[in-house]
């Protein structure tokens, strides 16, 4: 087992790659979209659904889904960050030029190509729209490969929708259906008021040719999946993005376990065939 000489050095997968904040767009009162560019060498290209570990030196590191356009693989990375803790708040507040560390991209993908020729139903709850944005952009960039494309997005109030301008632009297109709905009554809103499952329940679907992509808080995933299952869509055609505490993002720290899977390695995108039964177990 041992060799007499010291072995060649092994790469340190916990070492971040230096990036800089190159762009910053305010989305809502607590969310921004940051564009990062590499200080030197870029990380490998990303696929929709993947995440990176973003490090703010001295503060910490968090897993954030990539929300950028998958067609833009020039080394830049786009993340939509909600300020909920120390690290995400630091990322949220980071001004242009701030140095950060990035590791990744990690995790499983939405696998949009496997859904060619099918109807796409994209259901986003709150900031869950961010990891789904690459799916929508990917579908629009290759529109003829898919049948119908429907995006249903729920938010607390009208002001809390992410990507306002883009949602409006998508709504104006004839080749994509966009339904926005808010949870709480709001003055000056003449759109839908109701939980995201309500427009979803009204949507006519062909259960044999639909692939659904869901992202949002876990109860919302369960409620939405139930609606889709009631419509006859097989669990295997429903994909969800899961979240758990992540310290390493690479399957070595044990925090992101969710029953038999490591969310960083076997997720975050998981088929509902696997996720469904696990999501019903309390405190798993």
């Amino acid at each position, binding site marked *: 087992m041992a060799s007499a000489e010291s072995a060649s050095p092994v790469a340190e997968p916990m070492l971040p790659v230096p990036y800089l904040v190159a762009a910053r767009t305010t989305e809502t009162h*607590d969310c921004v979209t940051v564009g990062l560019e590499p200080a030197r060498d870029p990380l490998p290209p990303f696929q929709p659904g993947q995440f990176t570990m973003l490090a703010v030196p001295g503060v910490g590191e968090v897993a954030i889904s990539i929300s950028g356009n998958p067609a833009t693989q020039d080394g830049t990375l786009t993340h939509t960050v*909600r*300020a*909920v*803790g120390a690290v995400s*708040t630091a990322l949220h507040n980071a001004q242009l030029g701030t140095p950060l560390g990035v590791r990744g991209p990690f995790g499983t993908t939405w696998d949009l190509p496997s859904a060619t020729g099918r109807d796409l139903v994209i259901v986003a*709850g*709150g*900031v869950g729209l961010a990891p789904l944005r690459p799916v929508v952009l990917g579908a629009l960039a290759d529109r003829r490969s898919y049948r119908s494309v429907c995006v249903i997005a*729920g*938010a*607390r109030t009208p002001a*809390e929708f992410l990507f306002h301008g883009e949602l409006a632009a998508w709504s104006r297109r004839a080749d994509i259906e966009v339904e926005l*709905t808010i*949870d*709480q*009554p709001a*003055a000056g*809103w*003449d*759109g*839908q*008021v*109701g*939980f995201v*499952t*309500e*427009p979803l*329940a*009204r949507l006519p679907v062909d259960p044999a040719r639909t692939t659904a992509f869901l992202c*949002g*808080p876990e*109860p*919302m995933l369960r*409620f939405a999946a139930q609606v889709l299952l009631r419509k006859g869509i097989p669990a295997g055609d429903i994909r969800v993005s899961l979240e758990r505490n992540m310290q390493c993002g690479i399957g070595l720290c044990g925090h992101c376990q969710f029953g038999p899977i490591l969310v960083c390695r076997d997720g975050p995108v998981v088929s509902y065939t696997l996720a469904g039964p696990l999501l019903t177990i309390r405190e798993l």
Partner: protein
Amino acid sequence: MTERTAQLTGSAIFASLSAEELELVSSAARPVRFGAGERLFLEGSPARGCWLIHDGCVALDLLVPGRGQVVVQTLGRGDVLGWSWLLPPYQWHFGAVALRPTTATELDTELLRTLADQDPRFGYTLALSLFQACVQRLQATRARLLDLYRSPHGQR
């Protein structure tokens, strides 16, 4: 089968009714349409009528002093609007206004109540169908109460 019955057949709400029962319901039905902004009823008014929405958007609202008409819920394709006709005090608890041009089938609820009294089995099935719609609306409302999208920052 008449065209009216065909429209009711497609609705999930009346899916458990038999063909004869559907005929009964459609005998109380007529097609209607509302323009954008057209009010169907105000809260507090006598509850008469029930609508199966085919297309468009109807808002349920309530006048809140200081806030104006507050929209608490919107309904669309396939939804049933109006249950208060079935239970005392037979008054609308919320108002309803079309947000967009809306087509619907309006049911004569006086006739429906009479038919239900005459045929309790039909009444039971009708009540169950409406109950199912009510439960789904309640579950969605409870999901909204959970305020799932709120920020955990600073929340206990």
